[in-house]
């Protein structure tokens, strides 16, 4: 029997695929030589159209392909999140490759491919679809990481990411094969029914640990974090931004879907595991970041630390914890992408990512300095910015679930993290610049920076509506286990 397919549910993914194919065809069809403008411009226009579609068309909820593809509040909200992130990342790409003469239309296809993978991943209702979507996302990231062919660091980062990424997806696949063996299916719904009915089962527990290891790789949690600083430093900066926001968010969607839904029957066991992982991860990230001299590497360690904070919400195991994760990721999007945008623009002017070269940035470009200041201060969690309230909700979720020890460790870590973030701020504002040439920022890019700053401040000051969206998207999630506490 051929399943009935409701294409309305797939509209976003179908459009992204159409855009991807369209861009490739246009690029092949156009004469050689003047290829540098058309694909970027069309990418921006297409993304604008998709964002308008997301905002005004309204979500279409439901399942199709026999339950393999699920569109629910969680996936729909995260698709908006990915589109928003793409907006910043396209700007970064356009700026980053401005000076290099490489033929880079293929970089735009890879960005769209990564977006497609992330959107499919958010909507998967079956382990096979989840695996394929994860691979679409990750494989396009491998290529983008190693994209600077003449740069040895980019090559090394690509190699490390490929080997560890392939290793983690092999773990994931091996885990799925056992889940399939035990439950006779890869469909989330059926697996959830099996787990709810049978409870603890050693083979399924083993399989879920393997699946957790793949998620741990994506979100950069201990013990799968070794790649993060190297890859963040070596990859082209737009790719680093993509890894730190889209790829991490993709990991957390999987975590929320699987551990608040499918495997939730064993919540006592995995909450303990996640709490321990969260504590180790945040300590590792924040201690590692203390003495870094390269800003991308610093943000790499800081991203491990943030994975630790976010895992705290998952360890809480309540819907409040899951909504805190969503809310924090939203703030993290604006904060981190603002920081990476400044890094790209600064790199174009100074050809360096060393923190010491940021000395006196405030005197060279006021807008860049303010954007980086707000981003770092928000990452450090100082009120009234987005990062502060995000950390506050995560801590609140942990305390409500009686994880007071974890909340204390997190509080200590937040204090430690202020040291290295403010060290960069001091370099920007207090130190004397070695080069005093002002850095020019074009008007459209200033608009994007302004948008990011607005995001950081608005989410921090009026949290209510955003927190409500985060809660709604978890509470109406498909496969949400019925006895997850509030």
């Amino acid at each position, binding site marked *: 029997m051929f399943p009935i397919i409701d294409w309305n549910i797939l509209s976003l993914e179908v459009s992204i695929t159409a855009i991807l194919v369209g861009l490739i065809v246009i690029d092949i069809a156009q004469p050689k030589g003047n290829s540098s403008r058309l694909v970027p411009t069309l990418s921006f226009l297409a993304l604008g159209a998709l964002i308008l579609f997301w905002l005004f068309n309204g979500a279409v909820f439901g399942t199709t392909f026999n339950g393999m593809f699920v569109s629910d509040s969680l996936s729909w909200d995260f698709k908006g999140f990915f589109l928003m992130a793409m907006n910043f990342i396209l700007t970064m790409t356009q700026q980053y490759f401005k000076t290099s003469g490489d033929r880079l239309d293929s970089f735009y296809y890879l960005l769209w491919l990564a977006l497609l993978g992330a959107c499919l991943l958010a909507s998967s209702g079956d382990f*096979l679809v989840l695996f394929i979507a994860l691979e679409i996302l990750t494989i396009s990231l*491998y290529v983008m990481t190693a994209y600077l062919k003449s740069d040895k*660091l980019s090559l090394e980062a690509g190699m490390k990411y490929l080997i560890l990424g*392939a*290793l983690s*997806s*092999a773990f994931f696949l*091996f885990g799925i094969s056992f889940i399939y063996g035990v439950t006779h299916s890869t469909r989330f719904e059926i697996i959830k029914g099996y787990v709810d009915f049978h409870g603890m089962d050693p083979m399924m527990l083993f399989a879920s640990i393997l699946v957790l290891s793949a998620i741990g790789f994506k979100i950069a949690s201990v013990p799968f974090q070794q790649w993060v600083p190297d890859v963040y*430093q070596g990859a082209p900066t737009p790719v680093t931004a993509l890894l730190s926001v889209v790829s991490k968010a993709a990991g957390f969607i999987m975590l929320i879907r699987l551990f608040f839904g499918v495997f939730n029957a064993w919540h006592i066991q995995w909450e303990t595991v996640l709490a321990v992982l969260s504590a180790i991860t945040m300590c590792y990230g924040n201690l590692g970041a203390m003495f870094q001299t390269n800003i991308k*590497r610093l943000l790499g360690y800081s991203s491990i630390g943030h994975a630790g904070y976010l895992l705290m919400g998952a360890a809480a195991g309540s819907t409040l914890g899951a909504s805190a994760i969503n809310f924090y990721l939203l703030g993290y999007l604006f904060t981190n992408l603002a920081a990476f945008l400044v890094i790209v623009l600064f790199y174009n002017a100074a050809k360096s990512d060393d923190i010491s070269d940021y000395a006196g940035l405030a005197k060279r470009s006021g807008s860049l300095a303010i954007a980086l200041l707000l981003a770092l201060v928000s990452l450090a969690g100082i009120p009234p910015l987005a990062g502060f309230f995000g950390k506050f909700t995560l801590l609140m979720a942990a305390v409500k679930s009686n994880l007071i020890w974890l909340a204390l460790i997190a509080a200590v870590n937040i204090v430690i993290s202020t040291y290295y973030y403010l060290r960069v701020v001091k370099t920007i504002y207090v130190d004397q610049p070695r080069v005093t040439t002002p850095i020019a920022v074009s008007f459209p890019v200033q608009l994007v920076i302004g948008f990011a700053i607005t995001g950081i401040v608005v989410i921090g000051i009026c949290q209510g509506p955003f927190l409500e969206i985060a809660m709604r998207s978890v509470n109406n999630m498909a496969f949400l286990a019925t006895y997850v506490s509030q």
Partner: protein
Amino acid sequence: MIGLGHYLILSGILFAIGIIGVTTSRSVLRILLSLELLLAASNLSFVTFSKFNGDYAGQLIVFFVILVAAAEVAIGLAIVVLMYRHVSSIQADDLKDLKW
């Protein structure tokens, strides 16, 4: 009589060899080969479960996995070629500039 357990043990042994290969090899090509072995081990256990569960979904999944493995190894080999152009070697030790 060869049963489910035997196949699964074989698949587990293959997986273990793959892990040992990835962690101990110095040559990038051998690491890529070991990664393929890991995916092959998963494929074997999919096919085994498909046979003993009596449905075809597992065999179908294997086709997708073969596709993904091919894409992965194609990119891996491309990076190896680039690496050879840069450092005239395919030993993983020769790429160690990124350190704190």
